[in-house]
């Protein structure tokens, strides 16, 4: 390899990589839950190809050298890795701040104490509903609710800062006030209320999960009221449905700009869904140093900067605000990863996307297609 070749986007325009701040470490795709909106790719990585704890420790050191300050240790369910504490210790030894993102299932009190000693800084716990019936139905895991409530209690006893992650959709959005109250009761410092992103697994469940416009308006007003009431006591972050917004989300704060994701097998991705861009080739930590992948790989450089953008993004005054939105969503909805995200009101496809979402929202479907690992392979 030549020294410091000029990084270029997919059209050959020169780009200037910055240093990443955050890294998502998806240490396994295995999970006891089967949520029908799982953010993992539809083609899941199998257990035997997962990076070892030693390989993760090396990845964390490389990431810290590159400028990463925080690691989000996620999955799948990270607790499905028996060596989770060793992995966490690797992050601590690299000087990273570690966020454990968990369903709470499969981590006993004793293991949580171990994770405390290994240096977990913060715990984010997902909740699928505010009662056993909904939580167990959405997660596809009978008994999940009781286990989660026990887990939340241990988190409080040990003293970890807690964030509640509540994914909302048509079947549970009306109970948002109760979800916020529950997060308060559990002593959460923060609740993240995120509307399902209709990619991957969730795309298979659009008709059963798409919220109505009335529900979205209700959720917005609940959040606004709760923010005033809970000021200084609990932070509420709210992610509305893409098609209910005027402009798209600045996905990843811009492609290859501040964050990176490492998949269970060591594939390094600009975002967790990037493999849905089926023509793009991604590199692996086992083959190339992380710094080279970050600075020099075609995948990370593809959509850096703004020169690659077509119209209407190219002449848009918001191009450095939202960076044209989400590349994966452009791929999924426009069939072209470089297109303006159809969630944007300026996209020529926007009206059709909204109309389709409204049709899905009006559906009476309730049956779910659960996430599963395909047998064999």
């Amino acid at each position: 390899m030549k020294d410091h070749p000029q990084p270029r986007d997919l059209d050959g325009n020169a780009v200037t990589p910055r240093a990443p701040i955050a890294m998502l470490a998806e240490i396994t795709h295995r999970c006891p839950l089967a949520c029908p909106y799982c953010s993992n790719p539809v083609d899941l990585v199998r257990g035997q190809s997962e990076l070892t704890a030693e390989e993760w420790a090396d990845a964390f050191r490389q990431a810290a050298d590159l400028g990463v300050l925080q690691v989000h240790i996620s999955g799948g369910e990270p607790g499905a890795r028996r060596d989770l504490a060793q992995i966490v210790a690797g992050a601590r030894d690299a000087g990273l701040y570690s966020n454990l993102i968990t369903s709470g299932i499969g981590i006993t009190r004793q293991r949580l104490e171990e994770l405390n000693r290994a240096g977990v800084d913060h715990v984010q716990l997902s909740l699928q509903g505010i009662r056993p019936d909904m939580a167990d139905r959405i997660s596809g895991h009978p008994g999940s609710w009781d286990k989660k409530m026990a887990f939340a209690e241990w988190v409080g006893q040990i003293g970890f800062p807690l964030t509640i992650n509540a994914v909302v959709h048509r079947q549970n959005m009306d109970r948002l006030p109760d979800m916020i109250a529950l997060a308060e009761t559990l002593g959460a410092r923060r609740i993240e209320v995120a509307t399902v992103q209709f990619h991957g697994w969730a795309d298979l469940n659009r008709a059963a999960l798409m919220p109505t416009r009335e529900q979205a308006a209700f959720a917005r007003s609940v959040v606004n009221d709760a923010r005033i009431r809970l000021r200084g006591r609990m932070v509420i972050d709210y992610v509305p449905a893409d098609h209910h917004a005027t402009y798209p989300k600045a996905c990843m704060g811009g492609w290859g700009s501040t964050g990176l994701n490492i998949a269970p097998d060591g594939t390094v991705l600009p975002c967790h869904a990037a493999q849905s861009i089926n023509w793009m080739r991604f590199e692996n930590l086992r083959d190339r140093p992380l710094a080279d992948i970050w600075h020099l790989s075609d995948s990370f450089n593809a959509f850096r900067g703004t020169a690659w953008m077509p119209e209407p993004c190219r002449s848009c005054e918001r191009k450095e605000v939202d960076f044209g939105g989400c590349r994966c969503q452009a791929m999924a909805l426009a069939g072209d990863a470089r297109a303006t995200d159809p969630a944007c009101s300026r996209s020529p496809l926007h009206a059709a996307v909204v109309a389709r979402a409204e049709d899905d929202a009006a559906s009476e479907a309730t049956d779910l297609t659960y996430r599963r690992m395909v047998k064999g392979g």
Partner: protein
Amino acid sequence: MEPLIEPDDIPYLPRGVRLADDRVRGLRVLQAPERAMQLDQIGDAILSELDGTRSMAAITRDLAAKYAAPEDQIAGDVRDFLTGLIERRMVFVKVRP
């Protein structure tokens, strides 16, 4: 809006929030749940005073002496900066016993 901190209250960094060096960028940062906040010199100076024993008023007096600045101006800066962090749950407050 109600003030989130009074002069006699004691501000502190709760578990999971800490000052750190960003060695790659040569900056000081406040590490908190799912957020690393870059600090300027003033922010770093204020947060470095949080020891869990001194009140906001005492911290303000000490900063005014250290930087030879008018105390009422420092008081406004400290209160506004801490209020923003209390709203984000990155600084906690205890009432003096």
